[in-house]
Structures are given as C-alpha cells and as structure tokens.
C-alpha cells in the first residue's frame, strides 16, 4: 500500500499546515498577552512557559518523578496481565460464568471507577498502593473483555484440528486457544494500560502523592503559573509518547504473533 509521491507530498503539506497553525496560535497568544488584551496572570506568556521548562526539569527532579509514575504503571501492568488475562480465561472456560458475568464486566467499563479514590484513600492511605489499585481497577475491564473476545474468536476449524489430534484441554488451551487469542489480548492489554496510566497520573494529582501528577498539583498550589503550564505540557508529552510507544509495540507484537 505505497503512496504516490503526490499523495505523500500533500500529506506532508497537511501536517506542516497543522503544525503551522498551532504555532501561529501560540504566537498570537503571546502577542495578545503582551498587548494586554489577555490577562498575563491568567494565561502566562508562552515564552515564560518555555523558559520554565528547564527550571522545572532541573529543580523539581522530574526524572525521579517520572520514574515514580513509571513504577506505578508497571505494577498496574503486571496486575492487569496476571488478573485481567487470568479472569478472561476463566470466563471463557466456564460458559455459564461468562453468560452470567460478561454484561457486568462490560458495565464495569462504563463505570467511573476512579471516583472511588476517596474510598481507596481510606483503605490504603495516601500511598502508591492507592494509585496502583485505581490504575489496575480502571484497566481491568478492557483486558478481561478483550481476552474473552480473543479466545472466543478462535476459528472453529482450528479447534477441530486440535480435537482431531486428540489434544488434552490443557494442550488445546496452550497450543491453539492462547496463540490464536494473543493479538486480541495485546490490544486489550494496551487499552487497559492506557486507561491505567491516565488514571494513575490523575489520582497522583488529586491526592498529591506520587510522581508527575503530584508535580502539577504542587506547582499549582505554589501559584507558579508558568511552571504549572510547563509541567502540564510535559505530562501531556509523556502520555503521548506512552501512547505512541505502546501503539508501536502492539503492532510489532501482532506481526510476530
């Protein structure tokens, strides 16, 4: 599916136009603030925000905070992989259980789990455990549903092949069901991880504990506006990178699965 040079060029042009308009907008904001049209106390100068970046990175120990948040995400990932896939496999294996619970799990996906954070605060205190727990709870539904979907989507004829070779149920699961479901499971894990990451950073902000989310809260409470904006941009950047990296990983995993 290779592009013609013409389409590639117009695509580049579009990207450039998009980036250009965003940049123009920023410059416009800068000009309007300097002109006094926009209150500089409410919206800091973009140039000031830019200047705040190095200050924030150096003074606020951003790397260490980034590592803290990453650790929380990694714990959530581990829990999701073990319990999410495990529960999904359980639901697939026991059809009655699946018919009973699948709608509940789907409803869970629509539920605002993160709003239980005050409850988790009471149970686990202001700690990383609370943060990881919410991240895990937020991503769980996606992993379970995608695991079930992947397992259930195994082509009937492949199961027949297994039966024709007289595989035991354990062999059937290990050699046919699981490999067949792997692409779907990866999609689910990625989705779950994204939800987890979003909620982890959010809860860090809310409970004023942890890594990057807490940084924003800290800077905001200190009324250091340029730094607050800079930190927000930085966190958005990190989440974009996380999203892109997991997207690439998923595609690579699906190709070699």
């Amino acid at each position, binding site marked *: 599916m290779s592009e013609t040079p013409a389409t590639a060029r117009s695509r580049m042009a579009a990207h450039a136009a998009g980036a250009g308009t965003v940049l123009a907008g920023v410059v416009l904001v800068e000009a309007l603030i300097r002109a006094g049209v926009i209150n500089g106390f409410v919206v800091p100068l973009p140039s000031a925000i830019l200047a705040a970046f190095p200050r924030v990175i150096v003074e606020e120990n951003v790397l260490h905070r980034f590592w803290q948040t990453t650790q929380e995400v990694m714990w959530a990932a581990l829990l999701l992989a073990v319990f999410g896939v495990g529960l999904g496999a359980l639901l697939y294996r026991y059809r009655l259980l699946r018919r009973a619970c699948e709608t509940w799990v789907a409803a869970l996906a629509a539920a605002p789990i993160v709003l239980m954070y005050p409850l988790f605060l009471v149970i686990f205190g202001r700690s990383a455990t609370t943060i990881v727990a919410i991240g895990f709870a937020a991503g769980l539904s996606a992993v379970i549903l995608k695991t079930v979907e992947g397992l259930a989507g195994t082509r009937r004829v492949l199961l*027949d*092949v297994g039966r*024709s*070779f007289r595989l035991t149920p354990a062999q059937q699961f290990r050699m046919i069901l699981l490999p067949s479901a792997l692409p779907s499971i990866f999609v689910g894990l990625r989705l779950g991880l994204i939800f987890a990451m979003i909620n982890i950073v959010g809860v860090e902000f809310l409970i004023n504990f942890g890594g990057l989310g807490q940084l924003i809260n800290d800077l905001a409470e200190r009324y250091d506006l340029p730094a607050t904006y800079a930190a927000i941009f930085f966190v958005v950047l990190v989440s974009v990178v996380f999203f892109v990296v997991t997207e690439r990983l998923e595609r690579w995993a699906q190709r070699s699965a």
Partner: protein
Amino acid sequence: MQPSVTVAAPAPASAAATPLLDVERVSKRFVTPEGPFTAIDDVSFTVAPGEFVSVIGPSGCGKSTLFNIIGGLVGDYEGRVRVAGTGITGTHAGIGMVFQEESTFPWRTVLENVAFPLELAGMQKEERLARARHFVSLVGLSGFERRHPAELSGGMRQRVSIARTLASEPAILLMDEPFAALDEQTRVILGDKVLQIQQQLKQTTLLITHNLTEAVQLSDRVLVMTYRPGRLKRIVDIELPHPRDSDVVGSERFGRYVAEIWHDLREEATRGLEADEAQARAAGPRS
C-alpha cells in the same frame, strides 16, 4: 504411530483382506424445531488398505456429517464405525483429518505446523523438525519451511495442512473437500500431487468431494450419495491404470466414468434444487 492392524474379523464377502475402515449402517438424525430430520440414513461401506475412495454427492447430502462421524468429532449417531476391526469412540489415532476450511496455525511457520503431531508425540526438537522437513518436501513446499501461512497462497496452505496430517502417519487419511476453495487449475495439479503421494505411501484415503472429475481422477472407487436423507446410491469401481496424471482426464474411458456418475449425481442434484425451491416457497415472503 501406526496402530497394529490385527486381522481378527472374518473376511467380509466383498474384500479379500480385513477392511481398514468399516462403516456399518451409520445414520444421523437431528431434532429440529420443525421436526425430526435425517441427515444420513443407513450408510455402509468399507475401505481396504491402500485404497483411495471418494464419496461424492450434491450439497445437502450429508457428506460433511459423514466426515465428522468417521473422524470422531460427532458422537451421537446410529451404526458403527470400525478402524482395523475395533470400533471408534471419539477421535482415533489412526484417522488423520484434513478440513475444508483454512486450518493451518497462523502463528507457526510451515515447518512448525507440519511438526505439530510430532511435537505432540513427544519427539525431540531436532528430530521432529528433520522429520517434518521430509513431509514438507513431500507436498512440494521445500524452501518454504520458515514462512508463515499468511505469506502463502490458499493452495499452498492446504498443502501444509495435508503435510501436517500426513506427518502423523495415520492409517486412514480422511479429507473433506480440501480443494473446494481453490481454483480449478490449482485443484487439478494438487489432486495430482495428492494421488502421487498416496500411491507412494500406499496411504488409505477417504475423500469427500462434490467435484466429479476430481473423484474419478483420484479414486479406486467412487461412492455416490443421494440428496437428503443421504444414502449410498451407487458404488462405481474406477478401473483406470496407475500411475494416473491429469492427462488421463482427457481419455475416453475417463469420460465414460464421468458420464455414468453424472447421470446419478444429476438426479440427486436436481432433487436437491427442487427441494430447496419448495422450502423457500413454503417459507413465504420475508416481512
């Protein structure tokens, strides 16, 4: 992996040696909301060791049901199926199945697919890969061992499925319209290949098909089935010399066999079309 063939039962009138596959009065009935429904009715036949037998019939004659019953994937039927004298209960190690649909494992390479039954048997990695290589070259896919099925054409994937089943060295090779999804030319060439292999290995083979030329080209005997309920209408001995290749398709004798079987088949196919029409008419227009 060959089951020991004990010649215990008395020789039936139609064969000099014990048949390898003995299908005795097999019937399959379903209960549907519209009432009881018979898919196949009192089908009996045998397959001798080394024979290539085809079962042909119109759509709806219960061929696939027969395939699933003999293969042991369906347990609830009347009659008996015996392999080398012993009745089957579920899937049997002596029966290797090749399905109509795409059945290669997309996550394994060609070689790993073919090595699958050897892996199950507990063979060590090096030995089973070497052995699998033999079967890969048997079906003419040497050089493609490390490819994944997605990189191959439909015909090549079916060859992989066949090689995989052959690697388990079954007493009986049971195939359900393996070439149905392929174009005519590929089908003829693959049919050739399968016949070659069958003659070389002296592999007892039962082929389910709806393709007349294929049945006559490959088989020693053709069993013609009626439209629903599927019964055995006729058995035709194909006395064309071996080795056969696709050239024999043009010969006069071939033509006569085809005409003979087509006469029966056409009757059944017409009955089938009429029955479908009647059913659609009875169902009435959709609201």
